[in-house]
């Protein structure tokens, strides 16, 4: 029995326990232990990131003459460690008070636990793919298990889950087409055979493969224009589920792209594939799609009034950074893109959990119905603060490191427009996440939230742990970059050699140890200066300047709605909802065609069709 078998067994056991005892209050802790076990098994495979041989699974099948086998490599391991960590954190979050409250509110806790357990299992299967067939099998399993997780909450979530399903099946069909095409071209499902056949393939075949694979996996990643399902589907999933999905689920698309497009076809192929009548190559096309994915969803997030939706939209936008980095393909950029997967998982899970904690205490995620909670939930505030600094990509958190790598690479590569797009995405994120933080935690505390308390430790522990990871990997990104370097080596990218603090290069490197150190020292000096002043007296929030008015609890003295009025005055009219329009148009077109199709069966005398088609067929026969 190999470690991969052990991982699958542990994960399957978790799912079984969840299915059998998920409803039981004590099951949460046991499940958390089992998730911990999964994490441990993944950790035991850590040698993969140091160049150890791949870990195969001892099961394999032959179906219809096609072999199905699985193994873990450095790439798999990198994604698996994130998956295991996110699953552990999410399960820990559910295990205590949150799960009980969820069940008490009428939620189906067993279904949630089961769905939560099936997702990592499906992902471990997907991550162990060795060829197109096993990839597709795993891909479908992942799609359907996340569908189950989205459904588990019921209510509005079901509608979004169904929308997701349509997109997911569409994506899967594109993948299936690519897979059948690859098989037709090479006679095998293997990536190696495809890579070997690339020189003989025509540009048209290559383009077809690239487009089908990018579109198919892009659906899962929420790449433009296939992104419309993601925000709603993730946001309406029950909190910890959303944390897990938001952290890692859509990154499976990136994994599959890395495996097929960059590992299979090869980066060199993408760089040599020229788009007619333009100066662009295929990898730049991907980079531009990524750039639009960074910018547009981020600014959609800016307009959200629901904290969960805001985060989910940012999740789509951050996916763009990952693809941008990988598509640019040099050592820095690809390292940045892949490291961003890790970083995003850590802070996004923490953020979703913090928001869920707020919902747990206040019952709403509506950004216009909250405010001032920092005095009541200071630790949750801390987690959210660290999370948004990570999300916005500011020092000293880990999000900054991955984004810095991408910016630096874009300057190296001489891509000013992509660079500006990346920065615009970041600026939009900063603007948007401040609104998130402000509307929940700052400003005026509402009367009905006077009695709100900090959430229990069963919820705080995973949140704080994730926040600590966000900070520590920001302070010392070296280890994560080492994992990434192993992936780069496996996929044939140029390899980035990291230092503990980041990247050492004379023409502008990054040493986060110094950056963070100097920042903390600065804060210390700032604190000394601050304390040198007179002793301050803390006043009640109603003791405030109000232009001569006397404030009372009844007076709503808080600014939240239309937070960026001036900005929206300028760019508000740029929100056209074009993609929504496109989607609606597609649905309407389908509906229109369906009316026509149903009309075939409204004929008074169906023999008409018989006669008609006979005449046509005879005419055609001649």
């Amino acid at each position, binding site marked *: 029995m190999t470690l991969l078998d052990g991982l699958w067994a542990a994960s399957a056991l978790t799912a079984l326990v969840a299915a059998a005892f998920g409803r039981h209050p004590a099951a949460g802790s046991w499940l958390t232990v089992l998730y911990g076990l999964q994490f441990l098994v993944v950790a035991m495979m850590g040698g993969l990131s140091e160049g150890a041989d791949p870990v195969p699974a001892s099961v394999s099948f032959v179906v219809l003459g096609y072999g199905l086998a699985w193994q873990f490599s450095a790439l798999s391991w990198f994604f698996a460690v994130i998956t295991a960590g996110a699953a552990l954190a999410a399960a820990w979050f559910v295990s205590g008070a949150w799960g009980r409250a969820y069940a008490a509110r009428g939620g189906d806790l067993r279904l949630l636990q089961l769905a939560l357990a099936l997702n990592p299992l499906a992902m471990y299967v997907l991550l162990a793919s060795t060829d197109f067939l096993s990839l597709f099998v795993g891909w479908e399993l992942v799609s359907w298990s996340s569908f189950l997780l989205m459904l588990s909450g019921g209510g509005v979530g079901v509608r979004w889950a169904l929308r997701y399903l349509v997109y997911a099946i569409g994506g899967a069909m594109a993948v299936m087409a690519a897979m059948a095409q690859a098989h037709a071209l090479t006679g095998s499902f293997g990536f190696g055979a495809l890579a070997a056949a690339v020189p003989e393939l025509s540009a048209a075949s290559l383009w077809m493969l690239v487009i089908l694979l990018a579109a198919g996996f892009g659906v899962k990643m929420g790449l433009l224009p296939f992104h419309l399902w993601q925000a709603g589907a993730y946001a309406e999933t029950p909190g910890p589920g959303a944390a897990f999905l938001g952290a890692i689920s859509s990154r499976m698309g990136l994994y599959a792209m890395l495996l097929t497009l960059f590992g299979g076809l090869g980066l060199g192929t993408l760089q040599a594939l020229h788009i007619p009548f333009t100066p662009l190559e295929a990898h730049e096309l991907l980079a531009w799609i990524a750039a639009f994915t960074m910018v547009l969803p981020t600014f959609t997030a800016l307009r959200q009034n629901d904290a969960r939706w805001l985060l989910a939209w940012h999740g789509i936008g951050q996916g763009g950074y990952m693809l941008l980095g990988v598509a640019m393909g040099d050592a820095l950029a690809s390292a940045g893109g892949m490291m961003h997967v890790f970083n995003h998982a850590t802070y996004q899970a923490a953020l979703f959990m913090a928001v869920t904690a707020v919902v747990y205490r206040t019952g709403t995620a509506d950004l216009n119905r909250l405010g001032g909670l920092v005095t009541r939930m200071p630790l949750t505030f801390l987690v959210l603060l660290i999370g948004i600094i990570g999300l916005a990509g500011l020092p000293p958190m880990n999000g900054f490191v991955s984004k810095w790598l991408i910016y630096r690479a874009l300057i190296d590569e001489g891509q000013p427009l992509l660079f500006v797009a990346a920065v615009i995405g970041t600026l939009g994120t900063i603007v948007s996440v401040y609104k998130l933080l402000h509307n929940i935690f700052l400003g005026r505390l509402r009367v009905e939230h006077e009695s709100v308390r900090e959430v229990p430790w069963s919820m705080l522990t995973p949140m704080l742990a994730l926040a600590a990871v966000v900070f520590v990997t920001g302070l010392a990104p070296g280890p994560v970059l080492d994992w990434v370097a192993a992936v780069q080596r496996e996929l044939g990218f140029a390899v980035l050699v990291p230092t503990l603090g980041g990247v050492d290069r004379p023409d502008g490197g990054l040493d986060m140890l110094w950056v963070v150190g100097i920042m903390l020292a600065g804060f210390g000096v700032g604190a000394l200066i601050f304390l040198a002043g007179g002793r301050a007296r803390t006043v009640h929030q109603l003791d405030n300047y109000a232009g001569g008015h006397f404030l009372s609890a009844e007076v709503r003295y808080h600014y939240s709605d239309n937070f960026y009025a001036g900005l929206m005055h300028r760019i508000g009219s740029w929100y056209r909802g074009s993609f929504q329009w496109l989607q609606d148009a597609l649905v309407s077109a389908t*509906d229109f065609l369906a009316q026509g199709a149903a009309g075939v069966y409204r004929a008074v005398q169906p023999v008409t069709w018989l006669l008609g088609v006979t005449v046509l067929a005879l005419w055609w026969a001649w």
Partner: protein
Amino acid sequence: MSLPPLEIVLYAGAVSLLIIGLAGLVMSEHLVRLVLALGVAEAGGNLLLVLTGFRQGAVAPILLGAAPSGPMVDPIPQALVLTAIVIGVGVQALALALVLRVRRAYGTVHMSALRARLVEDLDEAAGLPPEGSREAPGVERPV
């Protein structure tokens, strides 16, 4: 394929009967006419089948003692067409029986009226409101 003029006439007649019958099935409104049109079409089909064995100037392939001199027509199609005619008659009888029962149940012998009533019945059986101008699927669109 060059056929003698007589055979051309005969084949044309068979095919015409078939087409007339099918056209009648498309264009008729009265249920009995539809059944009759079916009969015409079947007659055309049968004629076509029996013609496949036809040879001009040939005699019936009845062997009594010595074989007749000269060509004989192919006996197989004749056997086949006998079967086909029987089947056709059976089906037409069934059709007429159904017409009677339909008339008793719906009080109409007109196809368009019958079709409309049938759709109403189907919708009613499914518990659906009649499909009118409301051109929308029964449930919310999935996307």
